[in-house]
């Protein structure tokens, strides 16, 4: 299994007997300790910028105790994805009683996960240092890596545009979110999505066509749920729940993959908390709460349209509700809970509304 194909990177002038070069990016940089609280991540990290050039499906694992645990190491690696090749880097300068290994994963994402989970972890009494070693890539490896990255970004941009379009649709509906800040952002989004070539008629797009690419925006299901209401009020809840269920299962892999991607040290530390928070909140909100929330929204919107003047025109655009949704849960305690939740959410919302989202104009510096 140990392959001889993975040769050390051989320069034009250097032969196969040369010691593999120790590059600067192999070093473990000093952890930065001077970050202010708000920029602190979950783990102490060095000040370093990750680009696709630095990433690779080739990993170097340093600090493996020299006690014949190669199989165990590769088994550990294989937890994160298929390992294509591996070999010990005997020539690489290693600390006493440790070994260095080169591991080539089939996919970059596996290497990313392996690095994230194995770096600085103890292994048979030693502490592993795992780093990318893009210098082992062939030209073809590099080409494919860049190609994959580019198409990933374009796919993400496309589904984002689609998501924004759909958001536009839902935002126009009578929800309580028609604040100045959101509508301002919608405008910029509209501008952004113009070149995507799609018409804004989101209602015609099949809801499922967009599922596999990116998790739906959380609003989505409440839009379709409402559409179903036209047909059958009794099944509305069920359908809503069903949709939520689908979305939740669809969202989880998406979320986890995004968090695994971001936590591999690619993004600034603080983003971990952001993505992870999001993931956990999406996951743990019970479905009944979603339903209550949705009901509250509709009801609130209806209430708004009677009393509130500003932003009402916008609120009335879009598919209209056939009737006011039920407010009464026909049970005293249920009603109390509903109003409690409603009030809390109102508070939460009003806080988020106050936050200024106006653009910060950066004075362009002279170059």
């Amino acid at each position: 299994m140990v392959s001889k194909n993975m040769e050390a990177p051989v320069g034009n002038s250097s032969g196969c007997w040369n010691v593999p070069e120790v590059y600067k990016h192999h070093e473990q940089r000093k952890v930065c300790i001077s970050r202010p609280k708000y920029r602190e991540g979950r783990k102490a990290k060095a000040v370093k910028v990750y680009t696709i050039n630095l990433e690779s499906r080739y990993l170097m694992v340093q600090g493996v105790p020299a006690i014949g645990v190669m199989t165990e190491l590769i088994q550990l690696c294989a937890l994160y994805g298929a390992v294509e090749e591996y070999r010990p880097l005997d020539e690489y300068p290693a600390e006493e009683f440790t070994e260095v290994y080169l591991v080539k994963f089939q996919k970059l994402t596996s290497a990313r996960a392996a690095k994230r989970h194995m770096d600085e972890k103890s292994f048979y009494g030693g502490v592993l240092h795992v780093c990318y070693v893009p210098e082992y890539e062939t030209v073809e490896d590099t080409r494919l890596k860049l190609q994959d990255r580019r198409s990933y970004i374009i796919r993400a941009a496309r589904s984002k545009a689609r998501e924004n379009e759909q958001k536009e649709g839902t935002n126009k509906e009578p929800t309580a979110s028609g604040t100045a800040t959101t509508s301002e952002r919608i405008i910029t989004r509209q501008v952004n999505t113009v070149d995507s070539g799609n018409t804004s008629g989101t209602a015609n797009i099949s809801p499922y066509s967009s599922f596999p690419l990116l998790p739906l925006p959380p609003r989505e299901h409440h839009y379709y749920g409402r559409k179903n209401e036209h047909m059958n009020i009794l099944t509305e809840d069920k359908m809503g729940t069903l949709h939520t269920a689908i979305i939740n299962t669809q969202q989880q892999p998406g979320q986890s993959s995004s968090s695994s991607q971001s936590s591999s040290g690619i993004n600034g530390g603080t983003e971990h908390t952001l993505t992870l928070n999001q993931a956990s909140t999406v996951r743990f909100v019970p479905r009944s709460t979603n339903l209550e929330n949705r009901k509250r929204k509709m009801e609130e919107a209806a209430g708004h349209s009677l009393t509130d003047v500003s932003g009402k025109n916008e609120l009335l655009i879009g598919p209209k509700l056939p009737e006011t949704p039920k407010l009464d849960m026909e049970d005293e305690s249920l009603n109390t809970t509903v109003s409690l939740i409603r009030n809390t959410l109102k508070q939460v919302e009003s806080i988020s509304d106050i936050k200024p989202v106006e653009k910060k104009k950066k004075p362009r510096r002279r170059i």
Partner: protein
Amino acid sequence: MSQKGSVEGCDRFEYLQTLVTEFQDTDSEEAKEQVLANLANFAYDPKNMEYLSQLQVPDLFLDMLTEENENFVEFGMGGLCNLSMDPECRDIILQSSGINLVTNCLSNQREETVLSAITTLMNLTTPSSRSQITDPAILQCMLRFSLAESPRLRNLAIVFLQECCTEEQVAQVEQQMQGQQTAIGIPLPKDEGTAEICLCSRYSIPGRQKYVDSSVMLHPHVIMKNFYQMLLSDSSTPNWETICLWS
């Protein structure tokens, strides 16, 4: 729950805005470096691209390319490398005449910066920008890089030559290279004392030191000029290409 997406988006936007504000307000170089690295890493995630372009972070990164602090240049270039993958950000960078600024980074001392610059140039290639990016000077530089000893630099330059231009273009430039040299991709020395050491060590020229008089303190640009003349005088020798190898 139905609000979660936009609320989360708001938070993210605000957080990024806080970073940009801190970057502009702080006087501490260290804090600037940290924030810049943060922003550049955020640019890796396509979720943030929209917010970053709203906050004019592409321009912020471009501004960094002309800074004296090499970390600023490296992080800014890394950020651009990440951002330019996205078609919208790519267009913003192109509109801010980013090609020239990025091209200048090909002459940077740090390999990481040069690598980011090459990838960024590849990302910036569109039907309308192609002619500028496949300028003979840049292709010459890529040809030199494709002979470099560093495998990463070599691979990336080869990919550039394969993907961004035609074989005819490469052949044409190869011919031109017999005649004259351009400066792109040759690191600009920091000061007089280290200039020639830097050049000679980077190009691993055995026994050629005599071309540069080390006893005379020269202005970097004069040393560069001498260096090119040296290369020119060597271009008649059959294996002059080996001169261009990076050490």
